[in-house]
């Protein structure tokens, strides 16, 4: 029997825990930088997080050379162009991305422009095409969900051409991720719930999709365990710093896992649901995850059975006969969603998330062309996806 080839790459330095923010200046210095540009978005500014960051950052080493806080919900090309111009104008030498997935993805987009010097970054769309070294990038996530601080993916929207451009390259992985509880402490329970479910989906799909490998499995398995334990508690105990850090670390680990193993049908449907009906990504993941797991059941049974241990805990695992463990793992996911619904009001179906029944066909069609689908263990045709979406509606 031949062994399977796999690749794993994660050059990320992780600085995690209370006081991590204060290390930002030192980390920039380690990268040989002294003129950083800070990127964030209006919601982060109004939540006071930029202010908190700045007060931790001022340690006498150097000042911010430029700041940009107008990043929209979806990372957009026109904004990326504007930031790159400002970066050059102010002779910056590095980027600090303070925010959620959109801010970090924007920073990655800016980095592509700055490093590759391409006139049209659409020409670099695809996988493993970026060849030139990037500017040092420090990511400071303010949610525990997307894992963008650890991944090789960036999605930039071109609003003029009405397309979303995905870029995948090992060069896009940030240099340093700084996880500090002060950055996620104020996240409200509903947002904590859906971003946490996003991270759980990353971990579960990473553990079960076709690019899985023993190293990504280790990250995914541990992330599932940490999220399953912390998420139901944190939504009613948001000030708990230990739980906040558990979620932040788990989201990062799930990010490392899926950056190396990719994701499957839940993400294919989730991306399309966001694009057609504007459903936030984390919410789409929360709704679609168990349906995607059921769809893959016969193809991923063994992996789901293994996941019952981190999902349900040792006692439940031991009390469940081996042949029932896979199904039980899916039952735990349903229970977790119900708990989050009860505690935060998180919606459980696409209808309540604002998706019209008439939109389901378009979502199914779009899901088919999502790049994640190739990594799904089971082939999915349009009719099968539509059927799943109807169940989730």
């Amino acid at each position, binding site marked *: 029997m031949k062994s*399977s*080839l*796999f*690749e794993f790459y994660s050059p990320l330095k992780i600085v995690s825990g209370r006081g991590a923010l204060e290390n930002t200046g030192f980390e920039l210095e380690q990268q040989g930088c002294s003129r950083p540009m800070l990127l964030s978005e209006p919601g982060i500014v109004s939540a006071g997080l930029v202010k908190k960051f700045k007060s931790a950052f001022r340690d006498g080493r150097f000042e911010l050379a430029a700041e940009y806080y107008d990043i929209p919900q979806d990372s957009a090309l026109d904004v990326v162009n504007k930031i790159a111009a400002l970066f050059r104008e102010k002779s910056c030498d590095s980027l600090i991305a303070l925010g959620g997935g959109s801010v970090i993805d924007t920073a990655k987009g800016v980095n592509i422009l700055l490093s590759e010097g391409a006139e049209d970054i659409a020409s670099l*769309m*695809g*996988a*493993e*095409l970026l060849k030139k070294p990037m500017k040092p990038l420090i990511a400071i996530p303010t949610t525990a969900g997307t894992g963008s601080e650890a991944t090789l993916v960036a999605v930039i929207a071109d609003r003029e051409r009405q*397309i979303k*451009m*995905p870029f995948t390259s090992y060069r896009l992985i940030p240099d340093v991720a700084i996880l500090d509880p002060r950055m996620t402490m104020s996240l409200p329970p509903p947002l904590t719930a859906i971003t946490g479910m996003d991270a759980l989906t990353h971990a579960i799909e990473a553990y079960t999709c*076709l*690019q899985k490998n023993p190293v990504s499995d280790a990250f995914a398995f541990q992330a599932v365990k940490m999220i399953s334990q912390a998420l139901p508690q944190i939504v009613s105990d948001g000030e708990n710093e230990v739980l906040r850090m558990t979620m932040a670390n788990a989201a990062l680990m799930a990010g490392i896992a899926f950056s190396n193993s*990719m994701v499957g049908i839940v993400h294919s449907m989730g991306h399309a649901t966001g694009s057609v009906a504007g459903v936030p990504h984390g919410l789409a993941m929360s709704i679609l995850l168990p349906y995607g797991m059921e769809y893959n059941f016969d193809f991923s049974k063994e992996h789901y059975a293994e996941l019952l241990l981190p999902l349900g805990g040792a006692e439940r695992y031991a009390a469940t006969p081996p042949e029932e463990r896979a199904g039980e793992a899916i039952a735990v996911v349903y229970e977790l969603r119900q708990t989050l619904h009860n505690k935060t009001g998180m919606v459980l179906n696409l209808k309540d998330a604002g998706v019209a029944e008439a939109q389901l066909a378009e979502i199914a069609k779009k899901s*088919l*062309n*999502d*790049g994640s*689908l*190739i*990594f799904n*263990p*089971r*082939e999915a045709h349009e009719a099968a996806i539509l059927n799943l979406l109807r169940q989730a509606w």
Partner: protein
Amino acid sequence: MKGFYLDTIFFFLGRGLQYLSRYDPVVRREIAAWPEGFTFSFYVSPKGPALHMLKENKRLRFKGLDWHDSDLIIFFKHQEAAFQVFSMQLPFYTAYARHLASVKGDPGNAMIIYRLFNRLQTLMLPRFIARRILKTVSPLAKKDWLLRLGLYFSGLLFG
């Protein structure tokens, strides 16, 4: 030898796709999303061979085995990777998951190409071989058997 094999199989695949884009409603529906003049290629790094296709008059045209820049390119990292895929030893999705192949261009278009080749291989290959390289092999309908005969007796050679 492997280079010669890839040249040959690319020729048959190119002609086969050209044929299906004329007669198979499934393939015609898939390529309808592409604008006229859309091009795609398979390319085996670092020096070829390549398979170059063009959409023209609502159909696909096999443009030959020479390298051309295209709207969508699926690269194989080396000849061995392409050989394993096109000698039906390794499913394309596995090669992609193992980073033996990558994509330049919109991954959405790559997914269309993935389905086109799945369709071609379903029609072209005996079921016991197709099952080794495709996630699922749908049973052939009556019309599909006619397409298969067309492929064998005309399509794969003349397009």
